[in-house]
């Protein structure tokens, strides 16, 4: 009897993981394709958002540091495929960001919209400054400050403005996964 229950528990765990991977995986894939599409998100003064950053933060808030880190890596790889940056660079940054956000929610902050805004703002700004430093300042690219001011920071602000929507979408997916578990 115990053995039977144990097997059932294992199956349930596997099914939960499969549902989680499929749910968040589809969300990431959809956002990645939308983010990269030439006529995807509407451009404001030539600037487009990076919803994959907001998605990494939101998933890390609901699923913890391990899932957050793995989600960040997956999001970064999807971003890197069509980016001019070194393949794996954004994946590494988002892996660290996802893990850090998961830990902050576990230890310090509550999981709510205000925390989502705070964490997306902090993560987005940190990623923007690291991206700028490693890709422009370190290699002494011309007009580095211009790029930060006119492209990277506006893209971060656009992403930040979009983060409540991404948080809401992630919340809906999380509820759906947990609801289907109960049934």
């Amino acid at each position: 009897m115990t053995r039977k229950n144990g097997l059932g528990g294992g199956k349930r765990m596997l099914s939960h993981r499969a549902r989680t991977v499929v749910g968040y995986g589809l969300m990431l894939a959809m956002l990645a394709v939308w983010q990269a599409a030439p006529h995807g998100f509407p451009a404001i003064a030539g600037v487009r958002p990076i919803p994959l950053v907001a998605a990494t933060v939101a998933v890390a808030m609901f699923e913890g540091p391990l899932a957050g880190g793995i989600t960040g890596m997956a999001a970064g790889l999807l971003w890197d495929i069509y980016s001019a940056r070194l393949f794996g660079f954004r994946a590494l940054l988002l892996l660290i960001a996802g893990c850090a956000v998961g830990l902050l929610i576990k230890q310090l902050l509550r999981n709510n919209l205000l925390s989502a805004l705070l964490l997306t703002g902090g993560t987005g700004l940190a990623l923007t400054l690291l991206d700028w430093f490693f890709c422009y300042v370190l290699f002494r690219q011309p007009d580095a400050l211009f790029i930060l001011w006119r492209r990277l920071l506006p893209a971060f602000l656009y992403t930040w403005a979009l983060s409540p929507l991404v948080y809401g979408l992630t919340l809906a997916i999380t509820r759906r996964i947990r609801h289907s578990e109960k049934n």
Partner: protein
Amino acid sequence: MKEFFKSIGFRILAGLALLLVGVMIYAASTGGLATVPATLGGLIVTPVQSAFTWVSDGIGAIGNTVGGAFSSEKDEQIAALQEEVNALRRQLAEYESAVAQNAWYAEILGLHEQHTDYTFASGKVIAVDPTDICGNFTINAGSLAGVKPDDAVITAEGLVGAVSEVGLTYAKVRTVLDPDTKVSVLLSRSDETAYTGGTPALAQDGRFKLFYLERTSGAAAGDLVVTSGIGGVFPAGLPVGRITEVFPDSDGMTLTATVEPFAPLSSLKNVMVITSFEGQGEVVP
């Protein structure tokens, strides 16, 4: 917090981070060819990205027909007429799409007729990076279509840029606005040679620079710029752009010019990649 750093979860993440560092080192050493993980990712993502781009491009045309679909159904006659209007709008959207497609085929045909020695691969712009300021993009044609790193990318109007990285089913294109794109060019009026090089500030305005023009060259606004063919990377004579401004460098010995490209870089949908041409790889003295 300490528990997490001792957990298996942390070890998994640390292992993945190390793996990514390895992938980055590998990616830096491939010389324009996509890494195996990027190629595998591209194989899966590129068809989805192409389909999404095709849909998002068509949304504008289809959007006109959607507006009328939710009209009041009180009057059957109005509804029938509305349906007819919607059908006509759909036909119009299809017609506009066919006209655009036809214009693109005409461009390809024209290029083939002008340059019989060129071999082309056609590609659709499927992705851009939101943080990129130079208009670099990805097309849905890769090494399977014969595309190689450094191949010239053009439209009927002129040079767009060069291929910077190639996967099996996709290629990344670096435009002439990018500081890393160096093209040897010729001023059509004076035969003076120069090299292109962008700056982000100029890229924002859709222009790039020509460096190290001789002070005596006589370069002036309005001069046409074409590829020189020196180096054998790009075919000679491809139209690049028109000089908009010329000013002396700080050393007083040379001139710098700003150029507006002929190709509409901000609204590209389809491009052609020149995969081979007569004299490719031959260094012109």
